[in-house]
C-alpha cells in the first residue's frame, strides 16, 4: 500500500505544485477578483479529466451511483454497500451486462454529512447516473434526496430508515430495502408488552438520527399504550470510553427491559457491562444491533438479547451465496447493511432488465410492480417506496446465533 501511497503522494505533490504555482502566477496582490482565477485553474484540470473519461466510456452503460459514508467514524456502515454493489456489478458484467448495456458504479463518499451528501449528489447528477444506491444515513439521505428528485434519479437506500422519507410522499423517486423506524418500534413495543408482559421500561438511544428517531417512536408508542411505564429515557454518547454510569442508572431505575435505539458497537458495550454486573434486565434492540458482529463482540453476554431484523433469510440460498461471495472477494464476513444493499442492487438491476429501458418512469413502474428474489426474500415496493416483503421479525440470541422468534 505504501508504494501505492508513494505514487499517489508524488502525483499529489506535482498536482499541488502546479496548482500552487498557478496561484502564484495569478496572484496579483490582494485584489478581490483575483481569487477566482485560482479556483478556475484547478477546476479546469479536473473538468478536462472528467471529460476525457466520459469519452472513453461506453455511452450505453447504466451508471449507478453508490453513495454513503466511506470515511470517518461511520465508514463501517457504508463500505459494505460498495462491496455489495461491486460484487453484483461484476457478476452482471461478466454475463454481458443487462440488455446489452454494461453496468458501471460510481462510488462517492458522503461521510454521513449533509453537506458532503449534497456535493456527492450534485456530482453524480452531473455525471448522469441513472440511479443511486444510497445514502446510508438518514440525515445525509434527506439532504440529498431533493436533488435526485429534481433530476429524476431513482434512489434506493439500504439503510435510511427515517419514516418521512417514504411516508411524507414527497419523494416518489425514493425506495428502500429496509423497514422504517416506526415499523420496527411498533414491533418491539408490541413484543415487550404482549409477549414479555413487562411494565417498567428504559429507553436508551445513541443520540444519532437513527437511534434517537427510533427511540422517539418507541417512547411515543409506549406512552400511548399506557400498559407500561417509561422509567428512563436517555441518550448515550457513541465512542465514550465506558458506559458504567448509564448502566448504574438503569439498575437504579429498576427497569425490567431496555429498549435500545442505535448500533451494535455501543449495544455490545452496554450489554456486556449490564451482564457483568449480574443484572438480568431484558435487552431489546433494533436492526442496527442485529448484526453477527454484535454476538461476536459481546460473546456469552449476548445470550438472550432480543433484536428486530429483517425476516430470517439465513437459509435463503441467495443469502448464503451473497455472504460467500463477500468472503471470497474481501476475506471477511460482510458488515452492516450488506444484504440490504445486495437486495437493493438486485431489485434495481432487475427493474432495468425487465423494463428493458433506462427511463425513469419505466423503472419506477417496474420497481413498484415486479417482485424480485433477493437475499431478503421476494420483494417489491409500494407506492411510497417502502419495500413489500421486507417484514421485520423479532430475534433472540440463542447459543451464539440470532434465532427468529415465531409468534
Amino acid at each position, binding site marked *: *500500500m505504501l508504494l501505492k501511497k508513494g505514487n499517489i503522494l508524488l502525483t499529489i505533490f506535482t498536482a499541488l505544485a502546479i496548482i500552487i504555482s498557478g496561484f502564484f502566477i495569478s496572484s496579483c496582490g490582494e485584489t478581490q477578483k483575483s481569487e477566482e482565477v485560482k479556483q478556475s485553474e484547478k477546476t479546469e484540470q479536473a473538468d478536462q479529466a472528467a471529460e476525457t473519461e466520459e469519452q472513453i466510456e461506453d455511452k450505453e452503460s447504466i451508471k449507478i451511483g453508490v453513495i454513503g459514508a466511506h*470515511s*470517518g*467514524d461511520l*465508514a*463501517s456502515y457504508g*463500505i459494505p454497500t460498495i462491496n455489495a454493489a461491486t460484487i453484483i456489478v461484476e457478476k452482471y458484467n461478466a454475463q454481458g451486462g443487462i440488455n446489452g448495456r454494461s453496468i458501471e458504479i460510481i462510488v462517492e463518499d458522503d461521510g454521513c454529512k449533509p453537506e458532503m451528501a449534497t456535493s456527492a449528489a450534485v456530482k453524480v447528477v452531473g455525471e448522469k447516473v441513472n440511479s443511486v444506491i444510497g445514502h446510508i444515513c438518514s440525515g445525509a439521505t434527506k439532504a440529498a434526496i431533493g436533488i435526485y428528485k429534481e433530476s429524476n434519479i431513482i434512489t434506493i437506500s439500504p439503510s435510511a430508515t427515517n419514516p418521512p422519507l417514504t411516508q411524507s410522499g414527497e419523494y416518489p423517486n425514493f425506495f428502500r430495502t429496509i423497514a422504517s423506524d416506526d415499523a420496527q418500534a411498533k414491533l418491539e413495543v408490541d413484543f415487550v408488552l404482549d409477549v414479555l408482559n413487562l411494565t417498567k421500561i428504559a429507553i436508551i438511544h445513541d*443520540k444519532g438520527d437513527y437511534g434517537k428517531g427510533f427511540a422517539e417512536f418507541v417512547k411515543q408508542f409506549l406512552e400511548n399504550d399506557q400498559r407500561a411505564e417509561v422509567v428512563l429515557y*436517555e*441518550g*448515550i*454518547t457513541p*465512542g*465514550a*470510553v*465506558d458506559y*458504567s*454510569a*448509564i*448502566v*448504574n*442508572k438503569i*439498575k*437504579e431505575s429498576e427497569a425490567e427491559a431496555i429498549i435500545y435505539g442505535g448500533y*451494535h*458497537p455501543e449495544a*455490545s*458495550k452496554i450489554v*456486556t457491562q449490564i451482564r*457483568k*454486573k*449480574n443484572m438480568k434486565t431484558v435487552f431489546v434492540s433494533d436492526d442496527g444491533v442485529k448484526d453477527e*458482529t454484535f454476538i*461476536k*463482540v*459481546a*460473546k456469552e453476554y449476548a445470550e438472550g438479547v432480543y433484536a428486530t431484523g429483517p425476516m430470517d433469510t439465513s437459509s435463503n440460498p441467495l443469502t448464503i451465496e451473497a455472504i460467500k461471495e463477500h468472503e471470497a472477494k474481501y476475506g*471477511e464476513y460482510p*458488515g452492516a447493511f450488506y444484504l440490504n444493499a445486495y437486495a437493493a442492487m438486485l431489485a434495481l438491476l432487475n427493474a432495468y432488465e425487465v423494463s428493458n429501458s433506462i427511463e425513469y418512469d419505466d423503472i419506477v413502474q417496474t420497481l413498484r410492480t415486479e417482485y424480485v428474489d433477493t437475499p431478503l426474500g421476494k420483494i417489491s415496493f409500494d407506492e411510497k417506496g417502502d419495500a413489500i416483503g421486507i417484514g421485520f421479525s423479532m430475534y433472540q440470541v440463542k447459543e451464539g446465533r440470532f434465532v427468529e422468534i415465531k409468534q
Partner: protein
Amino acid sequence: MDYFLELFLGGLTRGSIYALIALGYTMVYGIIQLINFAHGEIYMIGAFTALIAASVLTFAGLNQLAIIVIAALAAIIYSAAYGYTIEKIAYKPLRNAPRLSVLISAIGMSLFLQNYVLLAQTSNFLPFPELIPEFEFLKPYSHIIRPSELFICITTAVIMLLLTFLIKFTKIGKAMRAAAQDKTMAMLLGIDVNLVISVTFIVGSATAAIGGVLIASHIGQINFYMGFIAGIKAFVAAVLGGIGSIPGAVLGSLILGWTESFFTGYISSDYEDAFAFLFLVLILIFRPSGILGKKEY
C-alpha cells in the same frame, strides 16, 4: 448509598482511563507546548497492536499469561516507536515554526494515522479479548466493581507514581524539567534537548498504549476511530488539571470522570458531555491555568 458508590467507582474508572491518555498529553505539552492531537491515535494503535499480537499468539497456542504479557509489551513498544517516529517526522522539523503550524501538523498526523489503520486493517469494530482474569476474591463484589476496573485504577496510580518518580528523581527527568523551563538554556548546559523530547514522546506514548490495552480489554472492542473522542476528553482533563503537571493530569481526569458519572447518574446522560465541557469552561474562567497549573501572573 450503593448507587452513589457505584457511580463513584464508575467515575473513578473512567477518570483513570482518561488519566492514562492525559499523562502523555501533559508531558508532551509541558515540554514543547504542543497539543499533540495524534496522541489519541497512538492509544488506538496500542490497542490494535495488542489485539494483533494476542490473536497471533493465540493462534500459535501460547498460554494465557504469556499472551497477556507479550501483547501488552508489543503494544507498549510499538506505541513508543510510533510516538518517537511521529515526533521525528511531523514535529521536529517544526521546532522553530509558529505554534499553530505544529498544531495543524499534529491534526494532519492524527488524520493520517486514523486512516492508515482504517485502510490497513478494517473499518469494523473488532472484538478484543478479555485480558484481565476474574479474580476470585472480587466475586462477592462483582455488582459494584469489576476486576478490570480495579486493575485500571491501580495501574493508573502506579504509573502516575512512576512518572512522578521519573521526573523528580532521575537524570532524564531533571533534563526534562530543565528543557521544559528553557530549551536554549538547557542546551547550553549540555542537555541534549532532542533526546529529551524523544524520551518524552516515548514515555507518553507508552503510557497511552497501556491505557489503550486496558480500555480495549475493559470494553471488549476496538476500532480505528476510538482514539479521537478519548483523546479530546483526555486533553480536556489535562487542561482541567493544569496542563504540564503530572498530578494535575490525573486529578483533572478523575474530576472529569466523576463529573460525567455523577451527572449521568443523578441528572441526565443527554447532556453529560455538555456538562463536562461547561464545567471545564467554568473552571478555566475562574482559574485560567487549571487546578494544579502554575499561575501566570
